[in-house]
């Protein structure tokens, strides 16, 4: 199905036209967005191509700033012309090149497209200028789909706007928050467009299905990414020799190096999640994430966090020496000891074969000890990474400000089963770095459990 459709995005200045396009095309770098009026002063095109060959071409237009003056300049609708003819006649005048140069761009774009998305800041009071705006846009002879932005704001006047639009026969309306889109809002937007453009119904429905498929695919990929990171963290293991254990300074250095390795792996997962959801790593706002700077370490290995996680695990103080003795922050979150490692290995031995068990027994006999991450750390990492995945998924590409992980935090109790699926990795240090059919099987099992954890924000 190779079809092309052109859609103009129009509206009053600063209503969020460019923001809407950023979110629809997942292009954080598209256009320029600011709270200053008149940031977009040219018509810019950006495409959304579905996997079935439908190409939607969006035209981002400057804002209409003086609709009252413009309606006056358009002059009265003479009996011998249609509304679009009046627009064309106006575009040929000098005013269209001078005083109303920007508005003329919007009107020219409108005459070229199949339909228009009319972006409305629903927080604005319904004033005469907006009535003029609706009148002008509705008279261009193109289907217009009003898109109500900022409807979740406390000051939203959605009902008033709905009534005004209905008065101009614009009954089909879409609620869309460019900063924090509702679940499925994109697909709904294309479905509504399909109703306005009966002749182009098939391609528009295809696009609606396409964006839904893409959303599902990103969700799956995100969960796989989290699964990989968790498996690698669970598999992380380092053996300390007897001499290393005896020397306090060397032991401390080894613990620190191990923790740094764990953090780097988790940070990599964060970077990859940002890539996956098309948020640039350099985004100043995203850099505010506690995860990308030094606070990450404090978060993942914070004794308080771990104690909390341990309590939720139902093991309380027994979770490990590091957490039990909050004063010893040096070993918080790390499980050190032949016995602990042996226990985990025996647990995994039944399903994973006895090779690793023999190695551990040998370690124990020779006074070596094994360093790995405690369950509480894995639990915290699982919660944070999944939360980030959900937060980025729900975040519009026009959003400014920091990512709110708190709103997307999964209750730790719900991650218990995930933790269970991570245990086999403890017996396979090689899984931290490389793939194998056994790791694949463990990953499948882990994924099955991760897929059952829903985004806490979605109903």
């Amino acid at each position: 199905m190779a079809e092309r459709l052109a859609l103009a995005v129009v509206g009053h200045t600063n209503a969020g036209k460019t923001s809407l396009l950023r979110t629809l095309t997942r292009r954080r770098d598209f256009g320029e967005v600011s709270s200053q009026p008149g940031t977009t002063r040219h018509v810019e095109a950006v495409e959304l191509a579905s996997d079935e060959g439908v190409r939607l071409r969006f035209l981002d237009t400057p804002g209409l700033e003086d609709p009252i003056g413009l309606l006056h300049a358009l002059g009265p609708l003479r009996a011998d012309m249609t509304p679009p003819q009046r627009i064309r006649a106006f575009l040929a005048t000098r005013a269209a090149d001078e005083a109303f140069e920007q508005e003329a761009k919007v009107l020219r774009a409108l005459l070229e497209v199949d339909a228009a998305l009319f972006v409305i800041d629903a927080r604005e009071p319904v004033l005469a200028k907006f009535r003029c705006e609706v009148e002008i846009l509705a008279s261009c002879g193109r289907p217009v789909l009003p898109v109500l932005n900022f409807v979740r704001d406390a000051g939203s006047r959605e009902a008033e706007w709905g009534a005004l639009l209905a008065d101009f026969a614009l009954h089909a309306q879409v609620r869309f928050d460019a900063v924090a889109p509702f679940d499925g809002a994109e697909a709904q937007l294309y479905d509504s467009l399909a109703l306005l453009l009966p002749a182009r119904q098939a391609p528009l429905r295809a696009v609606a299905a396409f964006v839904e498929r893409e959303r599902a695919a990103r969700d799956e990929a995100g969960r796989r990414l989290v699964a990989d990171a968790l498996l690698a963290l669970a598999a992380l293991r380092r053996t300390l020799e007897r001499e290393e254990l005896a020397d306090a300074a060397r032991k401390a250095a080894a613990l620190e190096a191990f923790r740094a390795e764990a953090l780097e792996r988790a940070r990599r997962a964060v970077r990859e999640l940002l890539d996956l959801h098309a948020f640039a790593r350099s985004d100043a706002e995203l850099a505010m994430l506690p995860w990308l700077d030094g606070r990450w370490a404090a978060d993942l290995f914070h004794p308080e966090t771990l104690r909390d996680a341990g309590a939720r695990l139902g093991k309380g103080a027994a979770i490990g020496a590091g957490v039990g003795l909050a004063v010893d922050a040096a070993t918080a979150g790390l499980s050190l000891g032949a016995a602990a490692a042996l226990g985990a290995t025996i647990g995994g031995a039944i399903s994973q074969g006895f090779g690793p068990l023999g190695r551990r027994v040998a370690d124990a006999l020779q006074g070596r000890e094994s360093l790995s991450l405690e369950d509480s750390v894995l639990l915290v990492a699982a919660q944070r990474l999944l939360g980030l995945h959900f937060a980025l998924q729900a975040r519009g590409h026009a959003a400014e400000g920091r990512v709110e992980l708190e709103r997307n935090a999964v209750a730790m109790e719900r991650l218990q089963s995930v933790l269970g699926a991570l245990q086999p990795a403890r017996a396979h240090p090689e899984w931290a770095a490389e793939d194998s059919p056994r790791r694949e099987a463990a990953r499948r099992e882990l994924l099955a459990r991760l897929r059952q954890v829903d985004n806490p924000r979605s109903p």
Partner: protein
Amino acid sequence: MSSRTDGIALPDLLLTEAVKDLEADTPLRDDAALAQALAAGDERQTRIVQRARRLAADTGLDRDLARLRDRLLLLGLALAALGIVLALLVAMALLGQGRHINAVAAIALLIAPNLAGIVAWALLTVLGARSQGGAFGRAVAALARHRRAPAHVRRVWPSAARVLDAQHLTAWALGGLNHLLWALVYAAAALIVGVVLALNQYRLGWETTILAPQTLHDAAQAIAWLPEHLGLPAQVPEQLDDPDASRLLGRWLIASTLAYGSLPRTLLALLCGAVLMRAHRGTLDLDEPYYRRLIARFEALAPTRVLDAEHAAPAPAHAAAAGGGEPGTLVLIGFELPQELALPSALLDRAAWSERVDGGLEEREALLRRIADHPPARLLLACHAPSTPDRGTLRFIEAARAGSIALLLLPAPDAAQLARWRDWLAACGRGDITVHADAGVVLSPHG
């Protein structure tokens, strides 16, 4: 993107997966590869494969793959040699010791393990179709990952094994090789037996202690059924003491070796080949995070185009007629305020007159006329703080004739709103207009 392709050729699939493995820890520098991939077309898989091809060429991965292919060819030759050795062993088993051959026992020795092997393979293929590869494939993959394996094998083989596994082809590929080997073994064995029997005199027959000789004769006859239908000479003599008996049984032995040894193995090898050929195109698992991230990057690179460029800065508005006005008078205009927002009563008391304007054209012009008729010394425009200032507001300000104009933002603005209105006025060349955040300031003597 544009219509989906039928799939990706197996070598490309393998190369792409190998590049994926190579990038597992640290992504490669791929600016040139990305550009090349973008130019290759709209289809996602095509782009990903194109990028991988370029990166494979840059990193020598394609040479590794070629080397691996050469090695596999050598391995094939070695297997053929092994086949000949095995054939000799089979021939020796058939011919037995001495000049006396028990033909029925010989053929049973030949058919039984072969048929058992075929049944075992079939069971493994059917049962193992769901699991990921057989134990043998797993063992080879584990060996290839071993530290001591040559670098080119380590870089390519794990991904090759994974691709075959994902396509459920491992059993067919290994089976094909296996059948080819045994087809060769039995053909060579038949040849060797033929040569030996042609140039030596053997006595062929059958012997039994507890069975009736007729039973063995019937068995031989039953075995002859298949080769005879295939047109091979496999006639069983009626009496073992016929002068032709050994000659006939010799031919029967060779024909049976071909019919029950070579033939089924050849047919099965062809079947495996056909399955491999049919499935020689596969698809990438685009739900894998690695590929999803690549897709996100490709999409971010799609060009945007400026169509209707900005060709003139907005015309500077004509300067307002400043100065003058009736001394001491203050006029308060509620400009485009929401209805529920009341004007501050203190200001209303102080103002000579006040009016609210929703912004309709007639209403607006009547108001401007009223101001022009009696220009006040101070015109205070109360605007909606959260709303975005626009050119309509500016045109009104420019058209209003008053001694001085100031803005008051209602309700009390936050710092960002205040800054936005001030920046906007400055950008419009009207930095001279004061923006008040607080009605009290307007009333103070310095306001």
